[in-house]
C-alpha cells in the first residue's frame, strides 16, 4: 500500500473544510504548525487501497506574505511537497478564486481543481464550460457539491491517478513585457537551489517579495541587483508598483479565462440578495442584529438554566451514593473533590457552551456573522480594531478559551494581542451563571444587566487604552462577504465540537486539579487561614464576609465554582441569608473582572506567551479589586 499526501488549498469560505470533513470523518485532528499559531487540520483516509494523508491548509487569497497563513501555506507546499494539491474553487466566485489558482500553479505541484458549490452557481444562472477551463489551465477539474457529498470520491480518484501517473506542468503566460522579464530571470536563477520552482522565485522577486529576496540575497546578491533594476524599468513602463503590476497581470489572465469559460444567465437568486441588503442596512441591519444577539442569549441562558438545574441536581445526588461506597473519610472527601471538578466542567459545557456554539456556528456558516462584523466595524474602530474582532468577542460569551484561539482571524500580531486582551474581559457562560444565580436571583435582573453594561464600558475603556499604548498602526477592514447560504449542519456540528474540544483538553484537567487542591485546603483547614490572610482585601477593602476569600480562590479554576464554595462555606444555598445585596453585586463584579480562569490563562500562554499572559493576569487581579472596592464605597454611600 502506498502512502499519498494531499493538501487542500483555496480561498476562505469555499468549502474546503466541508470536503475535508467529508473525506476524513472522525479520523482527523487539529493542531498548530510547529512554533506558530496557525491552525493545521490533518486527517487520514483509505481509498482504493491507498492510505491518504489529508492536510487542510488555511483559507487564503494569495501566496504573498500579507499574513502568516499565506506564508506558511506556500512554505508547506514548497518544502513538504505534497503529492497532490487540491485547489478548492468556489464556482460562484470564479474570477477571484482563479487568481489564487494561478499562484498555486506556479508552485509547481501536481494539482486538481475541485469546482465547488456548483449547485449554487447553477441557481445563480452561472454556466461554466469545464472542458474549456480544463484546457486553458492544464489541470483536471472535478465538479463538486461538497455539502451533498457529490463529486468527492471522483476527486480522490483523480488525485490518486495524478500521484501515480505524474502530470504535465501547465504553462500559463503573463503579458508580453512581464513574461519576458520572468523568463530572463528564471534563466539567471539556474544555479540557485531552493525548494521553490525557479519560475515561482522569478515572479516573486519581480513582485518584490521580501522573504524570497532574503533567501536569494544570501546565495547570490548580484541577482537581486539586476532584479531591482528591471523592476524599476517595469514600474516606469506601467506607472504602478511592481506588485500591482504582477497582480494586474494575473487578474488580466483570470478575467480572460472567465470571459471565455463562463456565462451568466438571468435567474439570480433574489432572496439571498434581499437578505444581504436588509441585514447590512444602516437602520434595519442594526435592529436585526440587536434582535438576533438578544434572542441568542435569551435562548441560551433560559435553556441553559433549566437544563443545568436538572443536571446539577441529578449529578449531586451522586454524592450520597459516592459516600455509601467510599465512606466519609478524608480520602473519600478528596476523591469527591475530583468528581466535583468534573461535574463543574460538565454542567457548564452541556447546557451553555455547546448550544451556544451550535447556534453561533449556524449564524457563522450561513454568512450572518460577517454581516455583523460589517455593522460593528465602526464601533470596533474606537478601540483600534476592525469589524472582524467582533467574532471572537461573541465567542467569549460562551467560553474564553476558544475565543482566545479564535483571535487568530486578526491579521497582525498587535491586533491579535488587543483582541485577546479584550476577549478575556468578556463574561463567559460560567461568569453569567454566577451573575444570574446571585445578583439576578436575589437582587434583581436590572442589576444583573447593569453589570453587563459596566463590563462593556470597561472593555471599551481598557481596549482604547491598550490601543493607544501599544505601538503600531491599526489595520483596516478588508473583508469579503460571501453570499448567504443554508448552513451545513455537519460542518456546524464539527466546528462546535472542535471549539468544545479546545475547552475540554485545556480546561478539564486544570479544573479537576484545582478542585482537588481546594478540597485539600478544606480538609487540612488551611482554607481558614487563607481566608484570614485575605481579610484586608475581602473584608476591609471590598466589604465582603470573611468566607468569601476562599470562594474567590475557587474561581481560579472555574468561576462557577465560586457559587458552590460560597454555599458550602456560608453553610447555606440561600445566599440572601449570608450576603447583603451590595455584597452580592460587589462579589459578582469582582468575579467578572478578576483573574481569567486557569484554562483561559493556559490559552493565553499558548497564544501570546508567558510574559504577556502573566501581565494580563496580574493586571486583572489588581484592577478587579480596585474596581470592586470603589463599587462597594459607591453603593454604600
Amino acid at each position, binding site marked *: 500500500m502506498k502512502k499519498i499526501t494531499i493538501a487542500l488549498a483555496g480561498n476562505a469560505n469555499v468549502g474546503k473544510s466541508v470536503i475535508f470533513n467529508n473525506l476524513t470523518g472522525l479520523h482527523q485532528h487539529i493542531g498548530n504548525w510547529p512554533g506558530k499559531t496557525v491552525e493545521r487540520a490533518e486527517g487520514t483516509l483509505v481509498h482504493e487501497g491507498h492510505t491518504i494523508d489529508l492536510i487542510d491548509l488555511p483559507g487564503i487569497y494569495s501566496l504573498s506574505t500579507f499574513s502568516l497563513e499565506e506564508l506558511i501555506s506556500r512554505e508547506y507546499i514548497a518544502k513538504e511537497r505534497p503529492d497532490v494539491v487540491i485547489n478548492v474553487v468556489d464556482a460562484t466566485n470564479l*474570477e477571484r478564486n482563479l487568481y489564487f489558482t494561478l499562484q498555486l500553479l506556479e508552485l509547481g505541484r501536481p494539482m486538481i481543481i475541485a469546482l465547488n458549490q456548483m449547485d449554487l452557481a447553477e441557481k445563480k444562472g452561472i454556466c461554466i464550460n469545464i472542458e474549456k477551463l480544463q484546457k486553458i489551465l492544464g489541470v483536471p477539474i472535478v465538479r463538486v457539491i461538497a455539502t451533498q457529498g457529490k463529486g468527492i470520491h471522483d476527486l480522490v480518484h483523480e488525485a490518486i491517478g495524478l500521484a501515480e501517473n505524474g502530470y504535465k506542468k501547465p504553462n500559463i503566460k503573463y503579458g508580453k513585457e512581464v513574461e519576458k522579464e520572468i523568463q530572463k530571470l528564471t534563466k539567471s536563477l539556474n544555479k540557485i537551489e531552493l525548494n521553490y520552482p525557479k519560475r515561482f522565485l522569478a515572479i516573486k522577486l519581480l513582485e518584490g517579495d521580501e522573504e524570497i529576496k532574503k533567501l536569494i540575497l544570501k546565495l547570490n546578491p548580484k541577482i537581486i541587483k539586476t532584479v531591482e533594476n528591471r523592476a524599476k524599468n517595469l514600474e516606469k513602463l506601467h506607472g504602478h508598483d511592481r506588485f*500591482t503590476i504582477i497582480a494586474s497581470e494575473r*487578474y488580466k489572465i483570470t478575467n480572460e479565462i472567465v470571459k471565455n469559460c463562463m456565462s451568466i444567465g438571468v435567474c439570480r437568486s433574489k432572496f439571498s440578495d434581499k437578505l444581504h441588503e436588509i441585514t447590512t442596512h444602516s437602520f434595519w441591519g442594526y435592529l436585526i442584529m440587536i434582535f438576533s444577539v438578544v434572542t441568542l442569549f435569551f435562548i441560551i441562558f433560559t435553556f441553559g438554566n433549566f437544563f443545568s438545574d436538572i443536571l446539577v441536581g441529578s449529578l449531586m445526588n451522586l454524592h450520597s451514593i459516592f459516600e455509601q461506597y467510599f465512606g466519609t473519610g478524608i480520602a473519600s472527601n478528596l476523591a469527591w473533590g475530583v468528581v466535583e471538578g468534573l461535574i463543574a466542567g460538565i454542567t457548564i459545557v452541556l447546557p451553555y457552551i455547546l448550544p451556544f456554539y451550535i447556534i453561533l456556528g449556524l449564524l457563522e456558516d450561513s454568512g450572518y456573522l460577517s454581516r455583523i462584523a460589517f455593522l460593528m*466595524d465602526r464601533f470596533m474602530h474606537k478601540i483600534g480594531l476592525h469589524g472582524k474582532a467582533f467574532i471572537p468577542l461573541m465567542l467569549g460569551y460562551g467560553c474564553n478559551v476558544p475565543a482566545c484561539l479564535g483571535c487568530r482571524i486578526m491579521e497582525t500580531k498587535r491586533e491579535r494581542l488587543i483582541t485577546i486582551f479584550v476577549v478575556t474581559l468578556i463574561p463567559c457562560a460560567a461568569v453569567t451563571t454566577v451573575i444570574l444565580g446571585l445578583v439576578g436571583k436575589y437582587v434583581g435582573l436590572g442589576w444583573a444587566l447593569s453589570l453587563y453594561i459596566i463590563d462593556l464600558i470597561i472593555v471599551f475603556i481598557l481596549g482604547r487604552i491598550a490601543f493607544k499604548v501599544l505601538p503600531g498602526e491599526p489595520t483596516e477592514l*478588508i473583508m*469579503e*462577504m460571501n453570499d448567504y447560504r443554508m448552513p451545513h449542519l455537519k460542518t456546524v456540528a464539527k466546528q462546535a465540537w472542535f471549539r468544545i474540544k479546545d475547552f475540554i483538553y485545556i480546561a478539564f484537567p486544570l479544573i479537576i486539579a484545582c478542585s482537588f487542591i481546594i478540597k485539600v485546603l478544606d480538609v487540612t483547614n488551611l482554607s481558614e487561614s487563607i481566608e484570614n490572610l485575605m481579610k484586608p482585601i475581602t473584608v476591609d477593602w471590598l466589604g465582603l464576609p470573611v468566607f468569601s476569600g476562599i470562594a474567590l480562590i475557587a474561581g481560579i479554576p472555574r468561576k462557577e465554582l465560586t457559587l458552590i464554595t460560597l454555599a458550602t462555606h456560608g453553610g447555606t444555598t440561600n445566599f440572601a441569608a449570608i450576603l447583603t445585596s451590595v455584597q452580592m453585586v460587589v462579589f459578582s463584579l469582582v468575579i467578572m473582572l478578576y483573574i481569567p480562569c486557569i484554562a483561559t490563562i493556559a490559552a493565553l500562554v499558548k497564544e501570546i506567551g508567558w510574559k504577556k499572559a502573566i501581565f494580563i493576569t496580574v493586571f486583572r487581579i489588581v484592577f478587579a479589586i480596585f474596581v470592586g472596592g470603589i463599587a462597594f464605597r459607591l453603593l454604600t454611600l
Partner: protein
Amino acid sequence: MSEKSMKLIDLKQGQKGIIVSVLGGRGVTQRLTDMGLTPGTEFKMVRKGRLCPVEISVRGSKLALGCGVASKILVKVKE
C-alpha cells in the same frame, strides 16, 4: 468618463467607478490588489450610508472596506 480622479469613499451609493491606484503602504496595497482591486478594474458602490464601512461589488464578489482604506483608493467615476 470624467477625467478627475477622486477617493473611492466619495462615490455615492449606486455609482460605478474604475480603480486608478491605491495609495498607502505595501501591506494594504498588496491586500487590495490580491482581492482584485487592480488599476482599471470596474466596481460599483453598493452600500454607502452615513456610517462606515462601505460595500463595493467587484469581480462578482462583495467586499467590505473600512473608511480608512476606502479613502486611500483613487478612482474615476464611470458615467
